[in-house]
């Protein structure tokens, strides 16, 4: 059982929580994730990236978007309540060293896992360019924290409600076109964004790391549900990743695999909204 120590709603459906998890807080490194389960009998196990950790307090911070049944139920939990299972830290940590200039691109909720990487890269002496993108203004998260770390900060929204009206790939291409070009790129966000970021940097030959968030059960290499094709080889995101060379990842296959249970997930999600409405109505009539 892991107690919820803090809960903040960052935007419409994005939440930040601090969970009591002393071992994970001590061991985790940038790039790693946890698997979380709300109900040990019938719940599902979902991977969530670790946005931050406080070893002194013994806590880890997760940021998640309420998109399915489990994340909705998690969002409904309050401080003082507990999560039944949190396993981690899982996956290989980010390879951090002094590369020179690193351009870090975060899309939507992807800014959360990007944050500790930016922190690590900065601490290693890199010059940091941060590009943050979101659909619209109120979906931009962790702007201040990122601004504080960045030597150069670019924000863009799809609808132009904040910063540049552009997709993140636009400023990314510009940055890659500079002389000298950046030494490294890190892109984390929706699969489609990571795919196009990798395509954007490819012609410039800027090495690009992406962090994949696939379907998982155990997170320890046992099930293979998370497997992806990287450079023609099968890799397990949970133990070989989650970070891979974005120029080698077969994104089409990965995106198709993410949809494997879409029908059942949509059903569960609709059901969960219906349940919430019924609950609200019941409370209203009381």
């Amino acid at each position: 059982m892991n107690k919820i120590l803090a809960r903040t709603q960052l935007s419409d459906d994005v939440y930040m929580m601090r969970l009591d998890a002393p071992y994970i807080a001590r061991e985790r490194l940038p790039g790693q994730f946890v698997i979380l389960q709300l109900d040990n009998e019938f719940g599902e196990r979902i991977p969530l990236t670790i946005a931050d950790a406080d070893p002194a307090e013994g806590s880890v911070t997760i940021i998640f978007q309420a998109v399915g049944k489990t994340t909705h139920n998690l969002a409904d939990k309050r401080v003082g309540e507990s999560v039944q299972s949190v396993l981690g830290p899982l996956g290989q940590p980010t390879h951090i060293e002094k590369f020179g200039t690193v351009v870090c691109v975060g899309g939507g909720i992807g800014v959360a896992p990007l944050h500790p990487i930016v922190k690590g890269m900065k601490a290693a002496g890199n010059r940091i360019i941060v590009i943050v993108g979101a659909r619209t203004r109120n979906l931009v998260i962790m702007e201040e924290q990122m601004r504080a770390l960045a030597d150069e900060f670019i924000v863009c929204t799809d609808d132009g409600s904040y910063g540049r009206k552009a997709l993140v790939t636009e400023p990314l291409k510009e940055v890659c076109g500079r002389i000298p070009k950046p030494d490294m790129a890190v892109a984390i966000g929706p699969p489609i964004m990571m795919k196009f970021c990798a395509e954007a940097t490819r012609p410039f030959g800027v090495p690009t790391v992406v962090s994949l968030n696939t379907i998982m059960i155990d997170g320890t290499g046992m099930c293979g549900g998370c497997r992806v094709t990287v450079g023609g080889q099968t890799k397990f995101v949970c133990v070989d990743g989650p970070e891979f060379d974005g120029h080698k990842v077969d994104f089409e296959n990965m995106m198709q695999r993410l949809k494997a249970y879409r029908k059942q997930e949509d059903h569960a999600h609709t059901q969960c909204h219906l349940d919430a409405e019924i609950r609200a109505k019941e409370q209203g009539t009381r």
Partner: protein
Amino acid sequence: MSHSTPETLAVLARQELEGLLKRDTPLTPKERIAITAQEMPTQDPEVRRRNVQEVALGYTPEQARLESMRCLQCRNAPCVQGCPVRIDIPGFLKAAAEGDFQGACNVIKKNSLLPAVCGRVCPQETQCQEHCTVGKALKSVDKAVSIGRVERYVADLERETGGGAAPTVKPATGKKVAVIGTGPASITVAADVRREGHEVVMFEAFHKPGGVLVYGIPEFRLPKAIVQKEIDTLTGMGVQLQTNFVIGRTRKLKALIEEDGFDAVFIGTGAGLPKFMNIEGENLVGVFSANEYLTRANLMKAYDFGRADTPIYRSGRVAVLGGGNVAMDAARTAVRLGAGEVHVIYRRTEIEMPARIEEIAHAKEEGVIFHLLENAKRLIGDENGCVKAIECLRYELGEPDSSGRRRPVEIKGSEFIRDIDAVIVAIGNDSNPLIPRTTEGLQTTKWGNVIVDDTGKTSLDRVYAGGDIVLGAATVILAMGEGRRAAASINERLK
């Protein structure tokens, strides 16, 4: 195979036993051999293919006694030679034949900790029962004394009647042992080490203990309540259980010894790395490792469509690649999840299949279709990246290979296509690499199995290992035997 109802089997057994008990002279070996071999009562195939309850229902007391009476009490006990943990088989059968079922159970428990589990999942026909004189006399291993079924009966009876003394624990020694994993090898080590009075902490990565007994072997073959009971016995003895804790990640193995004060560590993390065929299309949607498919169905309870949050792929025509027990488990699980057709594809013939005869027979009864001397060459996807067909090749048997089995040889140009909408790959597991990768100095074979000496000790001081992480994918009873050996060494080391 025709299905006899449990009621019929019970009546016949009662009548036969009554007849035998009326006699006042001891049975001759000939008469013992003439006793009807007792069939295991099972759920009707048509009913069970729509539920997840246990298929084999277990003997009646009369059946258990009759089956035990078939034992000739051979002085050289060839059956014991076939048992990896050397259970006194004639001894427990003698007690059971006399109706002393608790006595029989006590005999087994001297050597085996998990009789209810092993009675169900041991491959007896290639172990104890293979060497049985009765089977030899009747010229069929199927006619050997059903040692495992009697074992299961006496263990179930003990559990259901609350019999059997709780294992005694010696006074606290102040020593502390970490057991990594909670499968059969680890359960054995935990019990044997705890009995000596050492503190024991078990670490499990999943949210529930039991390892392969809960995530892999389906409910219809091994009810989870039985595994839970074994775990309860351990916690009742004072063994501590730490779930959601993956050694190598949550805590490094060496930290257990160097910082957390553990005096010894046992690694029993099993063979949890699924092998794939490395053929085209293997990462298409609808292609699963048997581990994934079974874990969703078993541990995550995906069969319970209304209640479980974990989804499972619903499919019409499923292909299962492989011929072992895991392949049978996956195929039979697919049947229960409502697949229209389930096809097992195996490149040798039924004789070479590693699956237990009983499992193959059960699968056939449930409608699983077997395609022998056939193998997948590539998987074909539709426009959405979902698997829609499998291209197979036909095989023939050639000369025997190093395993002694005749080598399957592909027939050139024999490719053909089968339409399917899901594929489950069940061609085995390698050892889980998480601990070797995160533990400096821990020596492994090139296949990733942890190397141990003949006491179960690894290349690191105070670190022991056993079960599938050492053996590669094997059986529950072998894992238990390995656990026994390592526990004895740990207890010796901590003296």
